């Protein structure tokens, strides 16, 4: 600190000595203020927004297809915003499930940000929305830093991944409101160690409720939807 102190107290009239200028700003402040605006917009419209995150291939799209169908059966209107580096394959799958969908193609960008979500939301077809499901880019690192204005975060872990994934990606799992273990119909053939997975999740993310689902068999989908709707506080 001694050289900094010296810099902070330049000799009078010494114009070449460095001066310290306080900044104290978050690098992502622009995203944060956009996210706060999104949150306000969602609240005014009465939308429950959920940020859904996982590795690529953990079953986000399939879970959201089943979620959309089940929400519609309950008379609740879903809408989906889905981010991918390329292709609109996921949007087409989701559309078939009956929800209005907007695909965000991020190009090389590894996460969604609050402005992208805002633009996507503004381009949704005019229809009633109760629940906005935001399927983030498959990535357990970068999206964790970007608030989108969501009411909660669901982080997925499929039984075909390592049970220790929460320990490998603590920043993401520690930001989760819900942790969803997906593809549980494959638990036995995949040799999934349920105790090890729960121990990793509860250790790293004690704040999160843990659910198990199978989008293929429908197991756990109703409980997942109840947990989702309970985020509306």
């Amino acid at each position, binding site marked *: 600190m001694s050289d900094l102190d010296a810099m902070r107290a330049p000799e009078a009239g010494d*114009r070449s000595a*460095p001066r*310290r200028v306080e900044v104290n700003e978050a690098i992502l402040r622009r995203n944060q203020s956009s996210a706060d605006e999104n949150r306000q917009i969602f609240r005014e419209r009465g939308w429950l927004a959920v940020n859904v995150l996982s590795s690529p291939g953990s079953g986000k799209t399939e879970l959201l297809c089943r979620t959309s169908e089940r929400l519609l059966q309950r008379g609740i209107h879903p809408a989906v915003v889905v981010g991918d580096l390329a292709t609109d394959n996921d949007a087409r799958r989701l559309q078939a499930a009956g929800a209005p969908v907007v695909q965000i193609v991020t190009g090389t960008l*590894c996460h969604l940000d609050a402005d992208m979500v805002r633009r996507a939301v503004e381009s949704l077809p005019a229809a009633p929305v109760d629940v906005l499901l935001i399927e983030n880019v498959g990535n357990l690192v970068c999206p*964790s830093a970007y608030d989108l204005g969501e009411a909660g975060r669901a982080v997925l872990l499929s039984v075909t991944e390592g049970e220790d994934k929460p320990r490998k990606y603590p920043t993401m799992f520690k930001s989760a409101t819900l942790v969803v273990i997906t593809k549980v119909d494959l638990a036995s053939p995949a040799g999934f160690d349920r105790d090890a997975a729960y121990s990793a999740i*509860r250790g790293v993310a004690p*704040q999160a409720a843990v659910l198990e689902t199978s989008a293929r068999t429908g197991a756990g989908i109703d409980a997942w939807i109840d947990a989702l709707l309970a985020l509306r506080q």
Partner: protein
Amino acid sequence: MHEFSLMQSALEMAVDRASQHGAERIERLTMRIGDLSGVVPEALQFAFEVLRDGTCAATAALAIERVPVRCHCSECDASFEPDGLVYVCPRCGAASGDIRSGREMELAWIEVT
């Protein structure tokens, strides 16, 4: 993490602030990076060395202050610095997800001439 785009934003913030203060050059940037931010300080340093060229920070140094994780234990109503990834209160052993610091990605201050 995308350290390049984060560094680009930090540098733009620094250059804006320097020009608001009528400075010619930035001598040093100091950033605060939380241990739970997901940002790798070495990658930030590397990005800085590439991105500073051609700006008023071309000869600047980058200092990174790490911010340790601090949690709050609701049982003890006290804060603690966890050891490792499982955040357990050293007094009572309760797990805590109430993270009060450690996610920071901030530009703290700049030194200018």
